[in-house]
């Protein structure tokens, strides 16, 4: 791994006049418009692409608000219907003593999405400014965010499964609330934001910084 105290000079693809394909990883000549290997369009690691990150992130944040304000589930048991928001559900689980489940839900629904927002925002910001975390650390962070992104839908899956399974007419019925849709959108937007982030920018920025320092 890298050693921040003794930064090693390295050559980025852009500096070498190459463009890496983000699909198949082939290093193409810098002038190529399309990947010579898989044919997908090649884009230079332009800082402008950060716009898309910010846009998706903003959309994800906007969607995250109703996901927390509106009820996630509408449970009807013997004619009594109750609606639970995310936080409310967690509080209820907690008050019922199901600390484990409450913790899982808390992590899946609150901690991870928020952490993702923060992580993507941090990554996006760090391209422009010097960051405390080294380039390698940020790459790892990016990979973690990308990996975890698909698991963020676990809440939505639970709601979907419950809704499909618990339709016992009068005895018990579960209907998804508006928050479920919002949450799904929020997760989708966050994933798109993570997707839009071009990790090459990390290295470009690194090399620029190094060049500046040099």
């Amino acid at each position, binding site marked *: 791994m890298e050693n921040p105290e003794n930064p090693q000079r390295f050559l980025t693809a*852009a*500096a*070498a*006049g190459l463009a890496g394909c983000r699909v198949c990883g082939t290093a193409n000549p*810098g002038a190529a418009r399309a990947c010579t290997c898989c044919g997908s369009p090649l884009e230079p690691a332009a*800082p*402008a692409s950060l*716009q*898309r990150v910010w*846009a*998706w*992130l*903003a*959309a994800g*944040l*906007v*969607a995250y*608000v*109703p996901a927390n304000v509106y009820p996630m589930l509408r449970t009807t048991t*013997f*004619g*009594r*219907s*109750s*609606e639970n928001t995310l936080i409310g559900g967690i509080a209820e689980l907690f008050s019922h003593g199901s600390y484990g489940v409450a913790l899982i839900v808390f992590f899946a629904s609150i901690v991870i999405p928020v952490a993702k927002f923060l992580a993507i925002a941090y990554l996006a910001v760090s391209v422009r400014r010097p960051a405390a975390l080294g380039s390698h650390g940020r790459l790892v962070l990016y990979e973690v965010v990308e990996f975890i992104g698909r698991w963020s839908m676990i809440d939505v899956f639970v709601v979907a499964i419950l809704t499909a399974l618990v339709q016992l*007419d*009068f005895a018990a019925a579960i209907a998804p609330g*508006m928050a479920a849709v*919002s949450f799904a*959108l929020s997760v989708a*937007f966050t994933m798109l934001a993570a997707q*839009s982030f071009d990790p090459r920018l990390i290295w470009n920025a690194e090399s620029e910084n190094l060049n500046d320092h040099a």
Partner: protein
Amino acid sequence: MTTPDPAPMNITARRPSLWRNLSLVWLVPLAALAVSLGVAWKAYSERGVLITISFENASGIAANETTVRYRDVVIGRVEKVGFADDLSKVSVQARIDKEIAPYLDADATFWVVRPEVSARGISGLSTVLSGVYIEGSWDQAPGLSQTAFEGADRPPLAQPGRGGRRITLRTDDGRMISEGAPVLFRGIEVGRLETPRLTVSGDSIVVDAFIDAPHDRRINSATRFWDSSGFSVSIGPSGLSLDVDSIASLVAGGIEFDSVFDGGQTVGPGTVFDIHTDEAAARRTAFARTLSGGVAVAVAFDESVAGLASGAEVQLRGVKVGEVSSLNAAIQSGSDEAEVRLIAKLLLEPGLMGLPRGAGEAEALDFLEQAVAGGLRARLASAGLFSSELLVELVTLEDAAPAAFNREAEPFPELPSAPSDLPDFTATAEGALERISELPVEELMAQAIATLASIENLAAADSTRQAPAAAVALLEDTRALLADPGTRALPGELQAAVSDVRALLADLQQGRAAANLAAALEQGSQAAASLAAASDELPALVADFRALAAKANSLEAEELIRSASQLIDSADAVIGTEGARALPPALTAALEEMQATLEDMRQGGLVENANATMASARGAADAVAAAAEGLPALSARLERLVAQSEALIASYGGRSSFNSETLDALREIKTAARAVSQLARKIERDPNSLLFGR
């Protein structure tokens, strides 16, 4: 590989303008924001109105769960359950749909629907599992909307906007009424009672009732209410009668009403009606009430008025034209001594006497004056064959003592009275029955047996064997007499008479006694005629006895002659009385005499004629026994009559209201049972229906 040249544009490129380089992706968060804001605005703008309902307690009400419904449609939800400022009440805050809010004006009421089991049924079952909900009711016109309401404990009897009329009922006895008890009109529920409450003075109980439209139109000044709860058993001329109303009203109490006379006027709000104890009492008041337009006259009776009560009918040729309003004694100071007279105050309804509608007191008094001049008198009459009650009859008597209608008498115009012919049919019929029962049939039988024993003793005696041929002839004659069809027919006649009497009694018991009076009298006379016919058979018997005596006379037995003539006298007495009553004693006496005679004969030395005498005596005994056989048959007939009477009374029920009431009650129970089983079947088939209340 050559050393790559750094791309100059990478180094020199300046960031272009932010706006020019703006990505289309920004539309996504903008759209998301717009949608979110839109949804939030919609939710906010469509947010209902927060109202506060205060209840005594919040049993079952939970924030965010309990719904507010109108006609069973959810229109809101409880948001908060708290207390009033001084903790005296529970205040429930509920958010009501915006469209509904304008209707929540001063007449809106709210109550909590809970499962309830009462005598009138089960309600609110669907709330057992789903929890209670708040039901509201208001009229269909938007008004000045309010946000604070008093919640009721129970559903209001008359929900706002429901057609009908609220009336107030008054009673002395609060036991027969309970909240929610039905108000019936001819057995159909048309309203409900509200909570009974004591008046301030505490001497009576008032209860509001709500009569649903369109039945509230039936309430007018002629309407009377009575208690229809419980059941009553009465025995009267028309038989045993059991009155049972619906099971529900039996348990919860019920009030029935009807218009007891025509032409009631509409009553204004605030009219208070009395609840009468039963229908008869309620109908009786029709006179007392309407006779404000009726005519009061007084009648002074010289005889006992025991059995005449206030409320008794006044009849004109069998039609009720009024009733006795009051009875009191008045001291009338005559010329020399004070005289106590019983004055009955009669209230007469001119309309019922055939006077034109609207005829006033003057017309009625004119009519009475004219009628009295024509012989109209008031007299006491029996209300029924088996009743000791009396009524006042207005009759036109041809030979009435002259009297005048005293219009100026105080306090009421006085109608002359006539002596009643009260020793009436009842007494006659009772007397006849008494006399029949007094017939000493048993004694007659005993006497006959004793006589036969004497005859047998006589026959067994040695001296009888010495009896002359005349004695043989005598005995043969005796046998012939006893074998005579006439004698044998006697029990048959008696039976016929008894059966006639029985038919008479049956007719009497059939009810309609008053109507059948003439027929009953006819039957009675037929019975008497039958008895007479039975008696008519006696002369033959007597003649035979006379012949027997003549024969005995030739035996030179002084005692025999004397007793035989006594027998003739007795038999004559039997004929002379014409009454069946005298018959048995006379026969008994005759047989006694005969016994004495035969005793004497046995003691006097009679010629022996053993075999013939024995044969004759046995023949005679057989004949007498054959004749006597009829008498047990008679008593058997009587027994059977009793049994038949019992059977009659038993079978009576077939048509009586007792039976029909019982059957009705049974039918009702059966219906109830069927309803329960239907309910059970429905629940079995579709438990959800119970839970959903559908």
